[in-house]
């Protein structure tokens, strides 16, 4: 088989793939890009609505709180809702698509950097997403406990509430850390394995 024959074979049109016209491809491409943007927008809208709901609800609780500590805790949760909504609106557009027009090595570096950035973001979630409302809820329940204690009523309910809140937040944190981060680390390892096999 001569080099020309090889090239000739290579250039033989594959009959299996459908031949779409330019405008048709453009429509598909725009639709696909918009679908992705739409998914992100819907996810952000749901999270924003939830954050606004939490803000309104806990603002009301803070307003009606019978004690200063409880009121402060509820206000912190309400403020967390505002902060989360702001964060989603400001940074919730998702990672920017990588520039595929760079060399293979540079592209792989971009992929690695992208994974690192996502891992960093997920690891930081506990500080900006979980910790503020958790602190607020713990303070509010602490206030509740102190009030019950002061009135001589058994305070098991408040202690149980702190336990439940801690448990829920711990579950979210574990899911994030052990599933989200591990998944991304696995993707990064896959990339490294592929590269090692090819070197």
């Amino acid at each position, binding site marked *: 088989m001569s080099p020309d024959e090889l090239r000739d074979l290579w250039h033989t049109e594959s009959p299996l793939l459908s031949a779409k016209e330019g405008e048709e491809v453009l429509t598909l491409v725009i639709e696909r890009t918009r679908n992705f943007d739409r998914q992100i927008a819907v996810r952000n809208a749901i999270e924003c609505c939830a954050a606004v709901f939490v803000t309104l609800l806990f603002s009301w609780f803070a307003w009606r709180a019978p004690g200063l500590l409880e009121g402060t805790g509820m206000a912190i949760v309400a403020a967390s809702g505002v902060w989360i909504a702001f964060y989603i609106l400001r940074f919730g557009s998702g990672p920017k698509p990588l520039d595929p*027009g760079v060399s293979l090595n540079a592209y792989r570096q971009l992929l690695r950097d992208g994974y690192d950035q996502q891992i960093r973001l997920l690891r930081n979630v506990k500080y900006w997403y979980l910790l503020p409302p958790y602190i607020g809820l713990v303070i509010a329940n602490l206030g509740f406990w102190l009030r019950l204690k002061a009135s001589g009523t058994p305070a098991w309910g408040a202690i149980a509430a702190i336990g439940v809140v801690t448990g829920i937040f711990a579950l979210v944190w574990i899911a994030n850390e052990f599933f989200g981060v591990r998944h991304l680390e696995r993707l990064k390892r896959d990339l490294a394995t592929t590269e090692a096999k090819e070197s």
Partner: protein
Amino acid sequence: MDGSNRNSGMIPTGSEAVRRETFLRLISEYRAPPQRLAAAYVRDTRDREDLVQEIAVALWQAIPRFRGESSERTWLYRIAHNTAITAVTRLRRRGRSEAVVDNLPEPKTQGSTHVHEDDGLIRAQRREWLIEAIRQLPAADRQIVTLHLEELSHREIQEIAGMSEGAIATRLSRIRDRLAAQINDPEVKPL
């Protein structure tokens, strides 16, 4: 070759209309290369269709970022290869690797007992064997040989792969041997 007359020049970017116009021109001029490259990366026809579409999406997203630092042609091939590599890694994770298929028919040469068969069929089969052999190469080698078959110069391949011309020549020689061994065709000559 498709788009081979477009070795240089900067893509005008700016308004959405210009972006659309540029995209339509590029996919019209470079219609076949993404399909051939997709075949070198994935076997399944649906995956190939998806990959061709992904390349188009990547192209659409990359147009505003093109600054003319490389030729339009090399830039396009970079997009196609990088998108293909990402797609292959994703398919591997789903367990749909491009591993060797054991039941592929034997390659038919002029001296085979099946010479009476339709020439088109033999040609299609030989092409499949070539593509199958290319698919089994490591990604970097696959990139180099497909670009070579796409008639890009060593200099253009250097721009895309980010390797020296000497390294490309060495690799091409090694790939030639590997392809020859895999196709197991005594008539295989240097690429």
